[in-house]
């Protein structure tokens, strides 16, 4: 639509608002209405096309009224719109009361019904409601013909929503492709080059299809153009796929990071192999579930904010459980890593069974708050879900807090001191036992936060932690012990590599390749990516 049309339409609209018109339908020319009501076949089709081409709201109301059977004819020259027991003469705009006796229905045959539907859909494309436009665009996809083409192109030039726009462009092109005029078809194919949707690719591929070695499409020029368009569409599609893959890689990486951060403290800094780490994640997820239920029951109005409350609860519950474990079991095993491994595995079994006993063996449902559902559509084939974006931001926040805590607070100082030299720290008056407990609690609490985040994107069940334990150990081992930076690089790197391998070889093989890679990597650099520099022979 060009500028002049816009101006014209704005003027018309302003005029319509200022000048009282008896009926909205007065905007439709009387001849058109007459053709619509009394005409046959082609005459009516033309009338509908004219209304669609004018594209105004009055036309839509008229067509809808005809479709609903509210438009009736009297004799050979009057067309009435019936509303209850009142009627309006559509040709003159005057009210008619009482209703005349000799009302006749407008004859609606199959062809007319179809044309009406298409016309209405085309007109609804101009609606201010996104949902209406989307529905109309979807409807038109199957029933558009050359008569609706002008309406579609007008709507297309005005449309801002990418999804609707894509649908419309596709519809337009497929209608044009069906045209008999070679120039139109060529233009259509050229226009398709700008698309980034998968269905356009299918459409273009159909043009290049061969049957028994002969091209189905006869026009060689068209085929060449189609090939060019196809290349550019594919280019755009693969860019979109790439963006999507990088995003899901980063997303997986941040999830791994959240799962491994706690481990980086307990294993990396304290040297405690905590096989129950996965279960602390699981406990965080269940804490989120409980908070969700409390909100649903007692504060249904504030349900969208349950997550804000669940985050500290998940942290506190997991941290408390972790500290209890540390005080009762783990502290007796400091310096005996293999025994710690076995004992914490035992703890994990007990925690899993305890959760099964309390909540049942089935997965529980954790609902996203409304602001976490849906996503941002970057391209037609790339949608970034809000829940994953939220987790990326959340992980960054947790990382920042943890870094601040370790590098800027007294507790952090103590933790680092105990890590580097327990005996010396103790001699200098650092309460090592207390620091151990708090550090372990911190690591466990971060596991709880990971669980809270995971509950938003995956299933919450008693086995939740088991699926993350191997992965998070891999992250810590790869990243190197005692380093937060290593954990971050390892998690993000593993996430992205995993997703790219997945696209190439499928999820299971990707995982295997990554595990084998880590096993080989450890051969070369047993201390991980970032090793602490020191002179100890044995860790």
């Amino acid at each position, binding site marked *: 639509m060009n500028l002049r049309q816009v101006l014209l339409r704005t003027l018309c609209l302003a005029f319509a608002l200022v000048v009282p018109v008896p009926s909205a339908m007065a905007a439709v020319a009387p001849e058109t209405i007459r053709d619509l009501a009394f005409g046959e076949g082609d005459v009516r089709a033309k009338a509908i096309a004219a209304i669609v081409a004018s594209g105004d709201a009055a036309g839509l109301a008229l067509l809808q009224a005809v479709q609903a059977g509210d438009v009736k004819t009297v004799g050979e020259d009057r067309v009435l719109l019936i509303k209850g027991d009142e009627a309006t003469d559509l040709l003159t705009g005057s009210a008619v009361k009482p209703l005349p006796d000799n009302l006749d229905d407008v004859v609606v045959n199959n062809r007319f019904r179809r044309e009406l539907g298409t016309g209405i859909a085309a007109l609804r494309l101009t609606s201010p409601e996104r949902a209406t436009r989307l529905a109309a665009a979807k409807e038109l996809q199957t029933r558009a013909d050359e008569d609706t083409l002008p309406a579609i192109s007008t709507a297309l030039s005005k449309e801002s929503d990418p999804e609707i726009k894509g649908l419309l462009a596709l519809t337009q092109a497929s209608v044009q492709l069906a045209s008999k005029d070679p120039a139109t078809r060529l233009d259509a194919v050229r226009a398709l080059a700008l698309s980034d949707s998968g269905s356009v690719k299918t459409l273009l591929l159909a043009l290049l299809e061969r049957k028994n070695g002969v091209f189905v499409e006869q026009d060689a020029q068209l085929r060449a153009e189609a090939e060019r368009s196809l290349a550019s569409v594919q280019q755009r599609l693969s860019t979109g796929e790439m963006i999507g893959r990088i995003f899901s890689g980063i997303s997986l990486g941040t999830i791994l990071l959240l799962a491994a951060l706690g481990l980086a403290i307990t294993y990396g800094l304290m040297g405690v*192999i905590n*096989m129950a780490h996965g279960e602390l994640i699981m406990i965080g997820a269940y804490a989120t579930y409980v908070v969700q239920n409390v909100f649903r029951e007692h504060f249904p109005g504030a349900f969208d904010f349950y997550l804000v409350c669940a985050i500290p609860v998940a942290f506190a519950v997991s941290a408390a459980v972790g500290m209890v474990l540390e005080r009762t*079991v783990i502290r*007796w*095993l400091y310096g005996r*890593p*293999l*025994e*710690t*491994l*076995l*004992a914490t*595995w*035992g*703890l*994990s*079994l*007990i925690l*899993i*069974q*305890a959760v*099964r*006993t309390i909540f049942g063996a089935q997965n529980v449902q954790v609902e996203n708050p409304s602001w976490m559902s849906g996503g941002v559509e970057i391209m037609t084939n790339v949608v970034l879900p809000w829940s994953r974006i939220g987790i990326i931001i959340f992980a960054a926040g947790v990382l920042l807090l943890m870094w601040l805590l370790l590098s800027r607070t007294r507790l952090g100082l103590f933790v680092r001191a105990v890590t580097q030299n327990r005996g010396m720290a103790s001699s200098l008056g650092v309460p090592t036992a207390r620091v151990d407990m708090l550090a372990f609690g911190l690591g466990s609490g971060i596991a709880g936060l990971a669980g809270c985040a995971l509950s938003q994107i995956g299933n919450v069940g008693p086995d939740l932690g*088991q699926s993350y334990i*191997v992965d998070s*150990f*891999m992250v810590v*081992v790869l990243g190197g012990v005692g380093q937060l930076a290593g954990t971050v690089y390892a998690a993000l790197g593993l996430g992205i590599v995993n997703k790219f391998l997945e696209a190439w070889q499928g999820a*299971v*093989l990707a*995982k*295997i390749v990554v*595990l*084998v890679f*880590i*096993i*080989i990597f*450890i*051969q*070369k650099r*047993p201390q991980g990516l970032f090793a602490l520099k020191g002179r100890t*022979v*044995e*860790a």
Partner: protein
Amino acid sequence: MKREDIEAAAAPADAAFALSRLHGASSRTVLAMLGVAVIVLFVVFPVCNLMVPATSALHISDYTVTLLGKIMCYAIVALAMDLIWGYTGILSLGHGLFFALGGYAMGMYLMRTIGREGVYQSELPDFMVFLDWKAYPWYWSFTDHFWYAALLVVLVPGLLAFVFGYFAFRSRIKGVYFSIITQALTYAAMLLFFRNDTGFGGNNGFTDFKRILGFSITAPTTRMALFLITGAALLGFLLLGRAIVRSKLGRVLTAIRDAETRVMFSGYNPLYFKLFIWTLSAVICGIAGALYVPQVGIINPSEMSPANSIEIAIWTAVGGRGTLIGPVLGAAVVNLGKSWFTQVLPEYWLFVLGLVFILVTLFLPRGIAGLWTRSRT
């Protein structure tokens, strides 16, 4: 390097040295124990199971025979774990993998013997028909010969362990790192075997075996034969283990456990010692798996789950690391407990197992066998 030197190096390092006195038990005691075991296994069980009528109080049911046969397989695995963990100080969390590989190798042979008696009455196993495969993949070739399958039982776990161990020990990966890497290894293998495309039956693995070497696999006599072979294998491996730990080689292994750096400084290269015992341990596991599959009648990838491998470690720990009889005891106690609990109080088994893990590591570092030595001294 003289034997005394190694002993001198190892002795003060760990109180566990005292335990080595246990396998120093006099030959006469060992002979007596062996005699009792042979009589119980090879006389009492066959007679009471096959000849004593079912109504008699002395009858041993088929269920008991299968259960004990299974537990003896586990005991062999625990013994293998003890050689590598108890004596050499390397905790493997991947022994379930070697066990399962041995089981799968035997399972391939057993699948081939089903012939056309499967559901689809095809030459191929049902799962391959289901995948629309037309022929056996290359790695299934010759598996219809028992001797070849038996060779695979030894070679596959052995080769995998050798290659993996060579690289791991060469770069001096040890302690917890090694444990976690082996866990990742078995986890990766589990994922691989879960895939249908891998050609080992995916989730369901192998089952519905019909016969072994021409004998019906469900016949009581076949079961008894498998039971006896397993028993013989267990006794044989116990004797082998005893020979190893009493040899110079065994002394070096213990020394590696207690002070690896000192062993290196004394001029030994721990790599080959570790590699030998690690590969041997994997092969023993593979054989145990091969004995296990025909008795239990199924093998699937869940045998490779990290949880299973950790459980093997706990059998050894419960029985007592660094003793030969300990792992056998541990495997028996834990698994009898498991089959009792899963029948009577299924929900509580994980609690009990978890507690066993914790209590044994906290209060019973030398296991059940340790209790015995303590009471003796």
